[in-house]
């Protein structure tokens, strides 16, 4: 074989190994990101506020297939935008919503009553409420939670 062709073949082989290796690595990373995406998405409001809307949303707190925490009302399936300082905690397999003082206020599966109001559609200003929104993974409509006033 022509020495020049040999060098070319080895070079192509190396490039192919690099490309295939990179592809495999990327695939593994993608799998990892898919796994991560199954963890609940928990948007919180960017700022603390003592002023809030006073509509009342009642319904079951549901974790949908995209990991979005929602409450359904009529034809709307609201993505809840939680008050500043709220967080998620998993305890004994249950996903809990915890307020800014660390007190659990609701769990996924609970029937809750959430004070607040909807970000009126098309809600172009949702980023004003939460830096995590808009999100490709969890779309609106959005319910801006003022207070969770009761859970069963």
């Amino acid at each position, binding site marked *: 074989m022509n020495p020049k062709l040999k060098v070319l073949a080895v070079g192509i082989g190396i490039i192919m190994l690099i490309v295939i290796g990179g592809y495999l690595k990327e695939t593994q990373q993608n799998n990892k990101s898919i796994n991560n995406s199954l963890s609940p998405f928990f948007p919180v409001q960017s700022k603390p506020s003592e002023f809030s809307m*006073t*509509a*009342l949303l009642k319904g079951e707190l549901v974790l949908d297939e995209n990991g979005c925490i929602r409450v359904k009302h009529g034809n709307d399936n609201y993505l809840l935008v939680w008050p500043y300082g709220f967080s998620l905690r998993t305890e004994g397999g249950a996903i809990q919503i915890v307020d800014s003082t660390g007190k659990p206020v609701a769990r996924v599966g609970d029937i809750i009553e959430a004070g607040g*109001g909807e970000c*009126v559609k098309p809600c172009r200003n949702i980023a004003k409420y939460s830096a995590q929104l808009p999100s490709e993974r969890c779309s609106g409509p959005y319910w801006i939670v*003022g207070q969770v006033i009761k859970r069963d």
Partner: protein
Amino acid sequence: MRSSWMKFGLPVLLAVLLVGSVFGGMNTQGNNSSGTPDKKDPIYDAQAYASDTGVNINEALLRFQLQNIAGELDAELTAKEAKTFAGLWIEHTPEFRVVVQFTRNGEETIKPYLKRYPELASVVEVRTARTSLADLQRAQASVLSSVRALGMPVDSGINVRENRVELYVAKAGVNQFKDALQRKGLSLPDSVMVVPVEKLAEPAASIYGGLPLSTCTSGFSVKKGWIFTTKGITTAAHCPNSQSYSGNDLPFQSERIGGSYDIQWHTAPGYTVTNKIQWWSDGSTRDITAKKSRNNQVIGEYVCKYGMTTHYTCGTIVDKNFAPNYIEDPSPTFIRVSSTTTDLVEPGDSGGPWFLLNTAYGTTSGHIEPGNDAIYMAVNYIESGLGVSVMTSP
């Protein structure tokens, strides 16, 4: 490669896009994304009819047209053939037909009308009845007048198919009704029949401000238009657009949020919209006969509100230039009310009325937590925001 793509691939792609756009276009006209027709679309009624009667949608739409023509024929026969016309009605199954009744010479009488309404020629069926519609109407008026003198509550109608007047009497009162007729020496004509019913018709329920909706409270009764008015009730714009009262849907009309506004309104089919508000938790109402715009509301003024969660509460205006941060680009026109003793507003109260005596002041928008303060939008923004007027008379 490029040339073969241009030669074969591009036309195929264009064909796919064309077919897709044609079907996509059809979909947006008649159906939503789930494939069911949009309820605002007239095709929805046709689909419902088709489903009920087992015909296709084109036939359903054709029959809708025939219904309109039958209505014109009905009006014309009533006016011009009063002596013999005994009413008409439409039958949808097993065949679509328009049945027209006369007391005599029906086949002859109908001929010139079918020339005028040729679309009906193949679906009209002429029958003979004993009493004309005009005579039935006279009998009904006469009987109702007599029965009213008895002091007995009855409903009444004309059953055109059976060619008779029907008097609907509550089952529990049938014997009492017959006794009363006998005592007065009254007898009913042959064309009048007493029909016992479980319950007589009741006046339509009313709807107004201060009532509990799905997620909020109704604000004030409003109307749109001057000659042909549409009436409804308001609530806050940040409440979901799907609202119901007592399990009945209240169709959403429009909303406005941002700046000085946080308001939406809904019509209320089946309800009588009145210029009232509920102001107490036992259901007590008061009439709204005046409205006070923001310019005329004064700091320190005592105002009250009603909401489905905290019911009747009152406080004093502390700020009429408030700009709540939850409103997009808020204008400093919202009104903040304070109380040292009472938590004025809680979730569920949004949209509810603010008032004093019989004057409307505004509708609830939000609250301040922790604390007792409430925020409302002044009543004049209902009108400027929605293009409606707040009802101050029935």
